């Protein structure tokens, strides 16, 4: 089993294509995720341009038709959640970090791990191909509510029940299978392959968070996978699970979707909370404040996330009495996140803070995520949701939850562990410019949308020229401001790519432990060799023993005997 006994693979195919090394698989997931983010970003460019300048030709594309607009918004949501957030935060960093942080030579099942990426790759190809089939890609919204998505209603056959929708469902289903294969590896590796002395409460928070994310995913995915297959059957073989004319029920799908969909938010969020803890402790040179409380309240949030799903359905036609229960649970989910925000602030308190690039992204995450949290209270309140449910207020809210999580969290992690996996230090100046432009532009996109949402701007409209009350000068200005900010944000991203590529060739060499951090991945060379550790490390303490009184050094590696 042990990789240390095998020689590292030498052929190109074995090393990079049919790789079983967790670090290479992590890199495959990361690069695929980043490339998909470019596709998702381009789609947002298309629909934001159409919204700000309706009917005008979009540079680099041409005129956007109503049907293409629906494709763009559907695929933007699908790609950003399933092909960017999950592969980058969960799959890439789970693969990079778990074996190294538990002191293992690789994942428990390396071949299964390889298959996980390969199935994911196939799902990516299928999704991208769907743009080019007759009728275009799926266009019924990323939540795929039937009957529109099922195509079982009168007159649907010719323009929606197309190949794009079939491929969308198949790609999603394959992607879930890929993450199940990867996820079982995360769990088995961190349960069974921890180094001697590495008890549960000495594990870095990020390992806990990645494992919890996998558990949430596994417990919630069954209903949606079944729901997606039923949808595929409705589309292809004429079943009527969601067709009222055949005794089916469209709202059934919404329950199956959101029973998965809400825990899915935490599948994305938990890895980032893990990155946050590692980065805050390292750059504040302090133990993470309330390690055990963070874990306990995260368990609480994870359990609670299974009983909040119907807040997506307050006005969908469910029994209105149900809303009272879901409104209460939804408001209460603010509790664990209050703990985490205040634990972050308390970690900074009386620290010795260095604002490196990863630290900027991490503190930026906390600052921005709070906006997502506070605006969630408006929507969790079922009565105000009656007004805001289908407006841009919702769009702004969930982007303030997801962009800090995925973009801020993703960039934080990439910058923080870049030296470990690339063997070179990324450029700080480029990194800081990239951070500030991206962070400011992000607020420029979504702050105006809270206000247009409150003014009644409803969602998924292709051209507001048809709605005089939503074409006031003020609202037009807000829309143009949001779109311009998006252009600035997109224009800043080459800074990131230049930094990554330039530093790979020209950056300063990274030592084993450039930040003087404690967890086990910093005890091996950068980049770690095949098999990671030359001998199995022994762990003597937790991962956050920074600035311990009486010690000269302000850090204390987990595997240092004294």
């Amino acid at each position, binding site marked *: 089993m042990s990789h240390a006994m095998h020689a590292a693979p030498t052929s190109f195919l074995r090393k990079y294509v049919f790789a079983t090394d967790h670090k290479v698989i992590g890199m495959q997931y990361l690069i695929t995720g980043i490339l998909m983010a470019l596709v998702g970003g381009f789609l947002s460019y298309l629909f934001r341009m159409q919204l700000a300048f309706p009917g005008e030709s979009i540079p680099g594309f041409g005129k956007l038709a*109503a049907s293409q607009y*629906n494709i763009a918004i559907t695929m933007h949501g699908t790609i950003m959640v399933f092909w960017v957030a999950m592969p980058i935060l969960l799959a890439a960093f789970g693969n990079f970090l778990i074996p190294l942080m538990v002191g293992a030579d690789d994942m428990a099942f390396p071949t299964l791990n390889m298959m996980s990426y390969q199935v994911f790759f196939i799902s990516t190809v299928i999704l991208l191909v769907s743009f080019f089939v007759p009728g275009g890609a799926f*266009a*019924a*919204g990323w939540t795929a509510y*039937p*009957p*529109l998505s099922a195509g079982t209603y*009168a*007159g*649907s056959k*010719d323009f929606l029940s197309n190949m794009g929708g079939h491929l969308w469902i198949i790609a999603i289903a394959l992607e879930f299978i890929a993450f199940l294969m990867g996820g079982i590896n995360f769990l088995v590796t961190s349960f069974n392959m921890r180094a001697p002395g590495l008890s549960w409460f000495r594990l870095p928070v990020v390992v806990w968070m990645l494992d919890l994310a996998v558990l949430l995913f596994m417990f919630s995915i069954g209903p949606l996978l079944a729901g997606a297959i039923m949808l595929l059957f409705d589309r292809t073989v004429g079943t009527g699970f969601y067709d*009222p004319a055949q005794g089916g029920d*469209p709202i059934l799908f919404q329950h199956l979707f959101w029973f998965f969909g809400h825990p899915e938010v935490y599948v994305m969020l938990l890895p980032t909370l893990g990155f946050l803890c590692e980065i805050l402790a390292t750059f504040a040179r*302090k133990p993470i*404040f*309330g*390690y*055990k*409380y963070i874990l306990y309240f995260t368990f609480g949030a994870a359990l609670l996330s299974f009983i909040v799903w119907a807040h997506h359905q307050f*006005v969908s036609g469910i029994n209105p*009495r149900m809303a*009272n229960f879901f409104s209460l649970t939804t*408001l*209460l989910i603010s*509790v664990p996140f209050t*703990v985490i925000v*205040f634990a*972050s*602030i*308390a970690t*900074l*308190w*009386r620290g*010795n*803070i*260095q*604002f490196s690039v990863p630290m900027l992204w991490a503190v930026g995450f*906390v600052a921005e995520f*709070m906006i997502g949290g506070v605006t969630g*209270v*408006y929507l969790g*309140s*079922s*009565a*105000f949701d*009656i*007004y805001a*449910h*289908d407006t841009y207020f919702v769009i702004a809210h969930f982007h303030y939850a997801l962009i800090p999580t995925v973009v801020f969290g993703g960039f934080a992690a990439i910058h923080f562990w870049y030296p470990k996996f690339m063997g070179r230090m990324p450029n700080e100046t480029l990194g800081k410019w990239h951070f500030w432009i991206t962070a400011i532009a992000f607020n420029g996109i979504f702050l105006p949308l809270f*206000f247009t949402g*409150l*003014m*009644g701007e409803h969602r998924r409209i292709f*051209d507001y020229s*048809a709605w005089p009350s939503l074409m006031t000068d003020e609202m037009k200005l807000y829309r143009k401001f949001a779109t311009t900010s998006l252009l600035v944000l997109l224009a800043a991203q080459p800074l990131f790519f230049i930094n990554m590529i330039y530093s790979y060739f020209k950056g300063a060499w990274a030592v084993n432990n450039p930040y003087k951090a404690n967890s086990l991945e910093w005890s091996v060379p950068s980049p770690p060799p095949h098999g990671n550790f030359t001998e199995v490390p022994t762990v003597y303490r937790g991962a956050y023993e920074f*600035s*311990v*009184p009486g010690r000269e050094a*302000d850090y204390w590696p987990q595997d240092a005997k004294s």
Partner: protein
Amino acid sequence: MNFLPENIATYGTQIDGLAALISWLGLTSFVLAEAALVYAAFRYRRSEKRKRAAYIKGESWGQAKWIFIPLILVVLLDIFIDIKTTAVWKQVKIDLPTADMNVRIVGQQFNWQFTHPGKDGKLGTEDDVKTTNELHVPVDTNVVFELGAKDVLHSFFVPALRLTQDAVPGRFIHGWFNATKPGKYEIACGQICGTGHTGMRGMLIVHNKEEFQKWVENPVTGGSTDPMEILKGNGCTSCHSVDGTRVVGPSYKGIWGRSETVITDGAERQVVVDEAYIKKSIREPKADTVKGYPAGVMPAGTLSDADIDVLIKYFKTLK
């Protein structure tokens, strides 16, 4: 909360009040938390004077109180907001008042169909008044609606009433509102329903009581001499362009006098587009389908002869 549009619903005041309450409580907590974060980040940034950080693990109660005190405050605020929320929700969605008037609302691709009770004040009788995209109600009246959908999900969203309710095929959902001010207000479709979703725009027309009585006696709709107003008002432009662009159905450009291949009962035939064909296509759209376009998509229109005459005059100019 002056960002919200004008409110004309009896219960709208409570909904707006809830938004104001959440804004005050939320913004206060938010500003305090951000201030603490920014203060900590700047106050304790790396400097020459401070040699090292304090060793604080935050696990003893004495230290952990700094996360538990905010936590208790947040729980109390949550419960307070939840109690207020539940009361408003109950009033809007659970306790339907006795109806002064019943209407039926049906969403379809891509317009709203409204059935008003007519002179006898009862739904489901001979004198029911059916309209497309125009809902007529009297002011200060408890209107109880039954909301359904013909094909896919739609959502009855009237910003001025602070009301959203999804319309689901296969069932009727009951709800209510009471409008307090005469005028015309937009009705949107809040749920993506297909390519023509943008054009699914209805109007809520609130009359004062005498005016409403007059409308019931002589229920005219439309009556416009502006063809685009008629086309948009009936949701036609969701699927048919006037500039030759293909949307869902054929464009109106050059339609008058054109020879079309249509499919009637599965057989192809040639027709010339004239007045009779246009009337039939609006009122019985399923009878003939232009070849190359999807069949069975278009709902039957309820346009008056006068409206159709205005349209025909306009089509003649669309060369």
